[in-house]
């Protein structure tokens, strides 16, 4: 029988339990806002700005999957929606009215008469921001109502969320003239007055991405401590029991899923200008699984595990893919399997594993000892 307590419990006096999220958050803030900007060069700073976006997605996955038990395999859907909406606005804002956005110019179309009507709302900055908030939330709500109210869970939900992402990716890839196709939306130049080509402005974007990440973690500190956070864990562990206490578990899951989708969309909307390009490869099925791996490695039920794991995996992915361009994915896959096999709770389970290993070693030594001649004769 496995104990539900973590090895940290003995340090977890109520005072420590109350203080540690805040102390952890301050450490994250110091590292993200003071340390990283000073040690990272111009190239790395925009790379880490992207990692901050992925970490924000991970924070949402941590809530939906770690606390809520919903394996959100297709979180790239919301990330991609946010990213594309922002990129569409930027491409429209980059050119004078009447001129085709860059993706159409790339294929030899120079006036915007063939631009699909769904681009129109994104000419206006305020509408764009509003839609980035509303569309992913409404979509997640609709998916959630359809799924959770019917008590669909586990693998079915995971497969469904991945299938929806796949449909979204396929639609974009197949529609070159409507939305940029496989090429994506490239050459993004300006973001709300910032010059995306300038390294100073990229540094500013890094700060924005880092602050968004910090705010999302702060949101989780609040939600996890609230009665909602307790109820979410209760729903994850014994959904029927919650039902018989007078709650509809579907509503609790729905809130967590919508919040995680909105976080992913915000992150995507920042990722596109930082990357100056968005394509389906950035949030494909594979990319979405990478997000899940980061969360699993960091510790999906913890507060800081998902963002830290996401940044670590993204950095590892970058390092490995430049060292071993053809088979780096095997390393990450192997890491995922190892984590699932021996550290199901993520790296935070490491002390527990070491303790277990120590017992095993002690046990072996204890068994061996009486057999030594010195022990027998003395």
């Amino acid at each position: 029988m496995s104990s539900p307590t973590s090895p940290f419990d003995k340090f977890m006096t109520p005072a420590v339990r109350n203080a540690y999220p805040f102390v952890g958050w301050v450490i994250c803030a110091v590292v993200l806002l003071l340390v990283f900007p000073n040690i990272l060069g111009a190239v790395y700073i925009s790379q880490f700005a992207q990692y901050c976006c992925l970490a924000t997605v991970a924070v949402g996955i941590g809530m939906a999957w770690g606390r809520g038990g919903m394996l959100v395999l297709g979180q790239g859907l919301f990330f991609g929606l946010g990213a594309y909406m922002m990129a569409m606005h930027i491409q429209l804002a980059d050119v004078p009215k009447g001129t085709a956005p860059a993706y159409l110019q790339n294929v030899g179309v120079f006036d915007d008469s063939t631009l699909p009507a769904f681009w129109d709302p994104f000419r206006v900055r305020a509408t764009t921001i509003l839609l980035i908030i509303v569309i992913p939330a409404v979509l997640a709500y609709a998916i959630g109502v359809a799924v959770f109210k019917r008590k669909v869970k586990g693998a079915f939900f995971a497969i469904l969320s991945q299938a929806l992402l796949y449909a979204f990716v396929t639609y974009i890839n197949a529609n070159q003239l409507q939305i940029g196709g496989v090429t994506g939306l490239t050459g993004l130049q300006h973001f709300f007055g910032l010059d995306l080509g300038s390294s100073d402005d990229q540094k500013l974007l890094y700060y924005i991405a880092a602050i968004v990440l910090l705010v999302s973690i702060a949101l989780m500190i609040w939600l996890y401590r609230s009665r909602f956070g307790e109820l979410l864990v209760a729903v994850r562990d014994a959904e029927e029991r919650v039902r018989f206490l007078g709650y509809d578990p579907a509503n609790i899951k729905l809130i967590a899923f919508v919040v995680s989708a909105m976080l992913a969309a915000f992150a995507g909307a920042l990722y596109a200008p930082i990357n100056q390009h968005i394509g389906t490869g950035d949030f494909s099925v594979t990319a979405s699984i990478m997000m899940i791996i980061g969360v699993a490695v960091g510790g999906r039920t913890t507060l800081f595990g998902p963002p830290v794991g996401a940044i670590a995996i993204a950095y590892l992915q970058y390092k490995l893919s430049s060292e071993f361009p053809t088979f780096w994915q095997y390393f990450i896959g192997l890491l995922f399997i190892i984590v699932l096999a021996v550290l199901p709770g993520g790296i935070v389970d490491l002390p527990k594993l070491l303790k277990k290993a120590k017992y095993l070693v002690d046990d072996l030594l204890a068994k061996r000892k009486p057999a030594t001649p010195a022990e027998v004769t003395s």
Partner: protein
Amino acid sequence: MTSHLGETPISESGYLQVRDLRVSFDGFIAIDGVDLTVFSGDLRFLIGPNGAGKTTLVDAITGLSKGTGTADFNGKDLIGVKAHKIAQLGVGRTFQTATVFEQLSVLQNLDIAAGKHRKNRALLTWRSGIPDSVAAAAETVGLTDVLDKPAGILPHGQKQWLEIAMLLVQDSKLMFLDEPVAGMSAEEREETGQLLKRIGSERVIVVIEHDMDFVRTFADSVTVMHAGKVLSEGSVEQIQADPRVQEVYLGRTAAAAEADSVAAAGSVAVATDGEA
């Protein structure tokens, strides 16, 4: 079938009146026209061999399984109502295997049970201190000292009490307890029985139980189920004297057929059904 307590519920006290309840799973009839009337202050035990339909009956009344017929609880029909709405009407239940939120503390478990008495927006707030209803329920079942412990590390008996305490916090006026003393020591059984007597005066309580000693000691009345129907109903003495009950419990083993004392009926029931 006529209840020994009569057909017409007294409006002043709480009651549950089940009429012609039927449940079937893909053609298999699990509950075959059950009538049941229970009043508050009458601690009712539901007994019967494995597969008699006791848990299924509770499932149908609490909204877990679909059934037909009526289950009138203080004037409201529960059949066809969603499980969480039934709970909001003041109906609570426990499960055969103690189901508590293992990762959460005892305090958190009890606090969640108090949720239906709070406004929805309270979900977004942090808890400050221990709510009165939680403190009172923890005191009643003797869990005050372990409020900060994760529920998962509690011994089995305390988990069962935690479940009962959750029903108290929930302030259920109709409670179904599915084998609440399974796995408890003799003293724990005694305490649980006393607790049920205490809280039962103003609530309708139905207890599914296999332990005949426990039934004999604490039941005000007993309903015996067999093959999806109510076989017999009455006081402990009445049902023990009922030849149909003896047949159901004794007719199944050759050795038991020789037993002629009414008391033996109880111990055989324990021996054959105790593992469930």
